[in-house]
């Protein structure tokens, strides 16, 4: 898949400036490439997970979420036509 499709940005092309940064990484030789085994990640301990409960939003929060919705018609929130392909 091309980057314009991956990014949902029309006509997007890789940037020359950014590619220069990536070249530096390609040419680097890190000693250890098994990065997921290190202990420096910020993963949460299983003993420290938050409670799996539903927290009701305030009326004001709900109202603002509705206000932010881009398009409304006759009391309904309007979304684009679903893709048919």
């Amino acid at each position: 898949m091309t980057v314009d499709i991956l990014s949902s940005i029309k006509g997007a092309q890789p940037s020359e400036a950014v590619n220069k940064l990536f070249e530096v990484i390609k040419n680097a030789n890190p000693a250890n490439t098994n990065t997921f085994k290190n202990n420096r990640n910020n993963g949460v301990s299983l003993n420290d997970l938050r409670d799996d409960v539903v927290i009701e939003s305030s009326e004001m929060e709900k109202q603002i979420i509705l206000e932010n919705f881009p398009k409304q018609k006759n009391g309904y929130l309007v979304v684009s036509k679903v893709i048919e392909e």
Partner: protein
Amino acid sequence: MDSQIHKIHQQLVSKDISCTALIQEKLDLLKPNTHHTVNSLLDTLALDLASKVDAKIANGESIGLLEGIPFGIKDVYMVQGTYTTASSNLLKHYKSAYTATAIQKLLDAGAIPIVKENCDSFGHGSSSENTIFGAVKNAIDPNLVGGGSSGGSAVNVAKDYTVFSIGGDTGGSVRQPAGYNKVYGLKPTYGRISRYGLMAYASSTDCVGPIAKSLEDIRIVLNVMSGKDIKDQTTYDSKPIFESNISNIENIKTIGYFKNFIESNAIDGQVKADFLTVIEKVKAKGIQVKVLDFFESETLVSTYYTLAMAETASNLSRLDGSNYGNRIESENLKETYAVTRSENFSEETKRRIVGGNQVLSQGFADEIYLKALAIRDQISANFENDFKEVDIILSPVTPNTPPKIGDSLKDPLAMYLSDAYTVGFSLGQLPTLTVPQGTVTGLQITAAKDRDERVLQFANFLKDTI
């Protein structure tokens, strides 16, 4: 100790000024928007809160230290009911439905938010020119950039339009503008302050950071905002930093600096000379100085941008105009997403999203993204080893002086490379403070993780030493 917060608190308590008059004065200063620092004024909210503080004082009730103190907020933080635009077209009319934890803690302490501040769109930039609200002008020389991405916040503090401001630092976005405008700016240890309600740029390095004119004000605001938050599970419990501890430097016997930062061809001659003068003054005070090896600037910048772009491509994928934002309708859902994003994102934001998707796509992930993660691990390991030998690492904030407005947009690679001295500490998730001393764009003081107190102690020492 020098502190604007303490000074204003005393003036309020002794009724030398009313809170309403104080807030009105700051709003009047911000309103002409001389330096393009203002995205929106929170005048109604601020004046309402001020009248409540005045009523308390009139009733003889005591007020907290932060009660009635006016502050600014980078326009990437949620504050319920206020516009939160990220300086972008896409969110030009977006209203926060809830309030960020860090900001809520300041509100709970009685501080009064007066302005949402201009910045690079979604934090994407080092100059605060990548914004729909006009390039932020430097507080000292308005022909120069204000720095970024928290440029509006640093300039407002420098101009005394706010007593303190809350910026966000992903790769230097608090420290660099603080340096460019000669104020203090802290990136605390990653996880010390909750990121909940801070619009995500690169989640693994995003930090909430205070900007202020004095070290004491940084300490006060840091203490209020710190703490574990169930809504950001990368947060941790930290101890408050007491004023009485700041003057203690018994734990600081050795400092280090990175040889390659100072010997680089890219560093301005005066910045280098001034930095080495500081080193000599520190040595003269009996502190041992070690010269340390570190990664090349190009490697640091490339590693940071590879990971930050990957994270921002993922974080910003939600911005498609479906549920909020400036949707532009097209023939079907997929086209609506694409047109909305193409028309509403800035060139710099698009560049970073595309770069992020490049490195995350099949065939490139191993060659670039995973390799950058491995280099980041080595950078962190390098820091861990360094802090076995030294208590503090000192560095310039930037290799050069602030560019003229317009220059950074012409050369994105030069802009990325200008972050060479700040991004490494972000990758290491280390506490780092910019102090407005030493070089024309200040100095950075870094300590090991969760040693934020030590950073403030050394800054206090430097205040009296150089």
